């Protein structure tokens, strides 16, 4: 029986007091304990940003790479060893800005990885510039008259790409968030969990109070069916007075690794090398030339 302590890395968190990241760390530990996933079976991949620090605080395998580039690393690791539980932790600037192209194309490939986005709607690590998800009119030191660009809607984008699992959590709703992370990890296929996360230092608009007044669970709408792509897309556009939380879209389908014949007999490291097969091919080729 794995306890919560098994996932403590002992590294002190370098986040501001009140940072939403503490909630994500907490929820993820709860999810991992409930799933009884052994630390050595987990790989966390992160980029750069406040979210990039996340795996330092969790005892498991981790790869901390470059800004925006967590997804390609995660995808490759999953292909190299599909037995690993691969979880990506990146931020809104990281995943939706610099890593935007990887986000789109990893969804298309549908590897069985969980992509958790710490969405605080601001660049935290570089101290408070607008991010791709900052709302129009959001004021920063670089955008003192407010952001003039439309915010990127990650859920609508993912649903439009037929992403196999699309969800939104909120750090103020911890048990619910832990359940979402658990469901995302258990889901076979690419699972996006966008987490609304206040940044008490650089985002004074989207605060805990702001979210508390707006968030609700999708399940409250009895009519809602996460299997309906159009309805899910419609829900994903809802933002402002009311902000839905939960699983927006669910479309189980074959994963990338399931479709690669070389992996059918299990991870490559467990497959025996058979030189005789290679020799046959080489002979065939040399006969051609």
């Amino acid at each position, binding site marked *: 029986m794995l306890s919560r302590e098994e996932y403590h890395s002992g590294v002190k968190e370098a986040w501001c007091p009140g940072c939403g990241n503490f909630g994500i760390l907490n929820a993820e530990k709860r999810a991992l304990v409930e799933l009884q996933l052994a630390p050595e079976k987990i790989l966390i991949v992160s980029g750069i940003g406040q979210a990039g620090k996340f795996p330092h605080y969790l005892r498991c395998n981790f790869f*901390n790479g470059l800004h925006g580039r967590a997804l390609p690393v995660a995808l490759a690791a999953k292909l190299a060893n599909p037995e690993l539980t691969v979880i990506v932790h990146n931020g809104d600037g990281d995943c939706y800005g*610099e890593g935007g192209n990887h986000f789109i194309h990893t969804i298309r490939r549908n590897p069985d990885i969980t992509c958790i986005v710490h969405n605080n709607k601001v660049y935290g690590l570089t101290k408070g510039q607008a991010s791709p998800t900052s709302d129009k009119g959001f004021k920063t030191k670089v955008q*003192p008259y407010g952001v003039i660009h439309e915010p990127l809607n990650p859920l609508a984008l993912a649903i439009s790409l037929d992403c196999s699992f699309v969800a939104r959590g909120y750090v103020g709703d911890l048990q619910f968030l832990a359940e979402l992370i658990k469901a995302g990890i258990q889901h076979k296929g690419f699972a996006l969990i966008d987490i609304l996360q206040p940044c008490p230092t650089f985002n004074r608009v989207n605060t805990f109070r702001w979210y508390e007044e707006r968030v609700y669970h999708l399940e409250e709408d009895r009519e809602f069916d996460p299997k309906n792509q159009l309805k899910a897309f419609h829900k994903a556009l809802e933002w402002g007075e009311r902000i839905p939380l939960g699983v927006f879209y669910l479309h189980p389908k074959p994963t990338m690794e399931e479709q690669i014949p070389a992996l059918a007999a299990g991870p490559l490291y467990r497959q025996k090398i058979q030189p005789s097969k290679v020799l046959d091919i080489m002979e065939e080729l040399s006969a051609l030339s």
Partner: protein
Amino acid sequence: MGKPVAMTGNIAVANAMRQINPDVCAAYPITPSTEVMQQFASFVADGKVDTELVTAESEHSAMSACIGAAAAGGRVMTATSANGLALMWEMLYIASGNRLPIVMTVVNRALSAPINIHGDHSDGMGARDSGWIQIYSENAQEAYDNLIQAVVIGQHRDVRLPVMVGMDGFIISHSIENLELLSDQEVKDFIGEYLPLYPLLNIKQPVTYGPLDLQDYYSEHKRQQAEAMKLAKPVILKVAQDFAALSGRKYGFFETYRLDDAEMAILTLGSSAGTARFVIDRAREQGVKVGLIKLRVFRPFPMKELQAALGHLKALAVMDRCDSFGAAGGPVFSEVRSALYDLSPHPAVVNYIYGLGGRDLGIAHIEQVIRDLQEIRQTGCIRELLTYLTVRE
């Protein structure tokens, strides 16, 4: 004489940009250069400049936007560091190949992996073959002065090349120093009105940038870039001369200190020159004939000038704040040593790689370098061609 002010390197550079008043700046935040553009954004918001500020979604996009704006005919500037510069890499070549005089502050920082946000020259040195003029600064004053000169150098008709001005991350970018700013009018007059060559916005004379250029003309275009680098040398000196007349501060390809009668010398770039000067003064008090050469311009590389300045030495230590893995030594060492090869006799040259990822270079380290130089001077033998300083091994 300007009024002394206290500023960090980043704020000094942002003020130079304010006085330069570029048409377009496109940037993406990255430590430790973020503050340059953040401060500059305040100048934009306060109406202190007429600049169009583009907040891009990556450094690749930032440099792309700079290129577009420069091709359109604008005076264009930006700032970045480390992996930001690395991500711009292919665009650096587009800027130089299209002869667009973009001016960029590079707050020098170590490259990942593993991640490190502190100062070294890996980023700038990685871009040394990109066709950009490279100027390195020792302190905030130099970063400010170099940036203003960079504008005039890059836009010169004989040059038309992009320029990057380096300063050491945190050591310079985040330290408050006293410096003198020129008046806004002085900077305006010094840089002059920008007259673009072949701007895309001139609809009366349509032009094409960057079309397919195969075996027929590509070599000639590259040869022209090489020629522009060569022609940049007299321009750099002329601009420095004009700048000295204006500010009283003298610049060249490099700066020497107690070098004329020296038998041994240390060659360095950037902020470590200050520490080296201090140690050299102490060694001189004990009768050790050691001097300093601080390289300011790395591209174009002042080969002939270095030969003239260093030829009389018996031993020279080249300090690299960057490694070139698997090479003969650090990038500065390789080129300086090559420059001295033609001299007969030539000084014994050794290399020290130091201060990676912001590791402090202390007095004792430079004292060790001087002791090594003395040994080479006395014995005529080089024991270690390449030494990793400030590292545990």
